């Protein structure tokens, strides 16, 4: 798999830094956003290959972001992974209903993250 462009969305700077560190290390191009709204704003101007988003964020949470993206034609089929410390079925069901492609539990192992990215991108 070649390098892809990934947008990571997380309100925690250290989590963004960790994700970037891991994903850039795997050869990807990584952009990040602090919350759902900023992510949407970025996504209005760029189209990445994959979005990895946190759930609990101020302004617009991960569910809101995914729902908003799935309403747009160009994002109907783009893979969106949720990366969250939460792991309740209820939340996962909600993410799935919103249109998430997959769910990764924090803290993540870089290898598993790589596998997850591979699994949803061409």
């Amino acid at each position, binding site marked *: 798999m070649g390098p892809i462009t990934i947008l990571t969305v997380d309100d925690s700077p250290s*989590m963004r*830094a960790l994700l970037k560190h891991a994903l850039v290390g795997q050869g990807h191009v990584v952009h990040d956003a602090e919350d759902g709204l900023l992510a949407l704003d970025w996504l209005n101007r760029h189209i990445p290959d994959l979005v990895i988003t946190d759930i609990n964020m101020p302004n617009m*949470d991960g569910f809101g972001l995914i729902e908003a993206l799935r309403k747009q034609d160009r994002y109907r089929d783009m893979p969106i992974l949720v990366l969250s*410390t939460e792991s309740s*079925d209820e939340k*996962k069901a909600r993410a799935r209903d919103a249109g998430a492609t997959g769910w*990764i539990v924090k803290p993540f192992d870089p290898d*598993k993250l790589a596998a997850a990215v591979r699994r949803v991108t061409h």
Partner: protein
Amino acid sequence: MQHDEIQQIFLLECDEGLDLAERALLACKNGNQDAEAINSIFRAVHSIKGGAGAFGFTPLQSFTHKFETVLQQVRDGDKPLTPALLTTLIRAFDVLTDHVSAIKGQAEAPADGGISAELEAIAESDGAEEAKPASLDPVISEVPSPAVADDVANDDLEIDFDDLLADLNAPEPATGGHVIHLRPTLRALDNGSDPLLLIRELCGLGATVRTVDLAALPDLDSFEPDGAYICWEIDVPASVPRTMIEEIFDFVGEACGLSIHVHGEEPRFADFPAKAVTPTAPEVLASANASSENAEPSSPAPAPEINENPLAPPISDPVAPALTETRAAGATANAGPTPTIRVDLDRLDRLVDTVGELVITQSMLAQRLSGAGVAAEDELSQLEYLTRELQDCAMALRAQPIRSVFSRVPRIVRELEAETGKRVTLTVEGEATELDKTVIERIGEPLTHLIRNAIDHGLEKIEDRIAAGKAAEGNVRLAAEQRGGHILISVSDDGRGIDRARVFQKAVDRKIVSAEARLTDDEIDNLIFAPGFSTAEQVSNISGRGVGLDVVKQAIQGLGGRVSISSEPGKGTAFSLSLPLTLAIADGMIVSCGGETLILPLNNVVESLQAKPEELKRLSPTQHVVNVRGNFLPVIPLITSLGMGKTEAVSEQSVLIVVETESFGQIAIQVDAIQDQRQVVIKSLETNFRPITGIGGATILGDGRIALIIDVEALAPAAHSPRELDLAA
């Protein structure tokens, strides 16, 4: 970016999170509990948990997990936020703060004090909620924190399986290993999923596709281009562990019917309807989560909108009567995401330093050009204006709101309440006031000391307060404001005030003053700052730690500030700290003395004068006092006190500069002449040379020469104290 650096970011983030959480908790305590307050506490704890896991701080992670579980229940409205629960949350917050200090290496791992168990008990109790299926919350709380759990590897990628399994016709078993039936639903390609990627990955592990079932393919008329119609049967060699297969299908979700079986053990799907297959689903799940999903097929799936979910307790009037203005101001300062950028402090300091040099160069240039008669006044004044502007901007970069210091105070107050049995209402104002970072870093200790002092010594015991006709709850007010080039911080209480007779007696006992001394109220009050002074008859655990208020005074002076005190018996005591806005620049009075150019900090200067002969009195051949409107001030010849040579006796020709010193009041410094008054950039002698008593630093003058900045405080002791005076004579 290295792991360590990312960890540093995390530690900063912890502080910010704690800060936010504490403010929200206090808002709740003050009756302003709204959904957003709870949510922000939850988010802060949640973020810390995430980072703690990522960086391997297991105790922190496990504690935040318990804390978060309870917060989540409160946020989701499952548990009403009762005063008792709030108290527990605040205690948990304090322990969390300790955990964070522990990972920074600033403290030992905190004593839990049973708070973890308490949180767990709360999490597992049913709360006062009956509308919600009781099974849900316990399930959430029992799910172990991912990294703490033993089955981390399996849990790492959560598994989302459908409760519908495909009713494929099972083919004959082949050669051992696993058989996978994969039957995507029509919408399996939605949301970016693609079963083909999964199959490809399986094949990478040595799997082979045994059959491809095209039976579901419709006519071209009804064919949907983005629909999924194909089903697969895949053989996976026995060498591939089942967990690995499960991991690959983590993401399958509802999109694909999936079953994994050992060869020869596949059920005949045709034998029972799809729904009945559900009980087998848990077999393929490593996680306990799925069982709850299956056990509660009719549970109300749609989770409430988090942000709109009203909290169980009534939301109180957002306009609280007290503190409205300051709280509102604080909130405004915090409202909305302010775009920020993190800058390495070294770079910032280099900028400030360089701008400082620029200021000096600019003034050198101005001096040189005006000396050379070059007519460039407009440009020069414009340049000066711009440089000043730039300097202000650079200085502002180092400024931080004092909030980070103030936010520690509520906790100290809580601890002291517990320790002393007194009840305290803390009022905090001006948290958004900005100070230089260095000041912020060093102001914490002295401020803590003053707060402890106010509660321990200032406030009376509850029974004494009631006897004095006061409210049982004592008031302590902490406020900051900018006034001119200074920041004023005040700590005041409505306690008993300073017992001047006792203070004076103590000072006499400690030989700080003589019994005959006639002191004003003000002077007596200031005695409590004298080194070695302590009025506590019973040394308490709180402020009587062998550290007196003199340490507070020294610390504040070390920051270029002043402390003053005012007290009214029976009404209370107020300490005011006056601190400079920046430590890097000061207004200076440039004087000449013995052929040297020296600088007196303008902060200290009260006035300058030339004395009339009758105002000068000689005490000894080398000691004089000057009568300034009835006050006799000691005259300190700068030249001798700095050891630069012999001075001419003070005369009406001498220029005297009256300066205010903290420890000894006003003194008159004798210099040869006053040259100028201007801003100087302070260069530390400690870092560039070595510390010299009497010299506070150095600066570069407009003509490029170096001038020393006088430390007025160091000149003072030789002047005022009778004992010191004897020694000097």
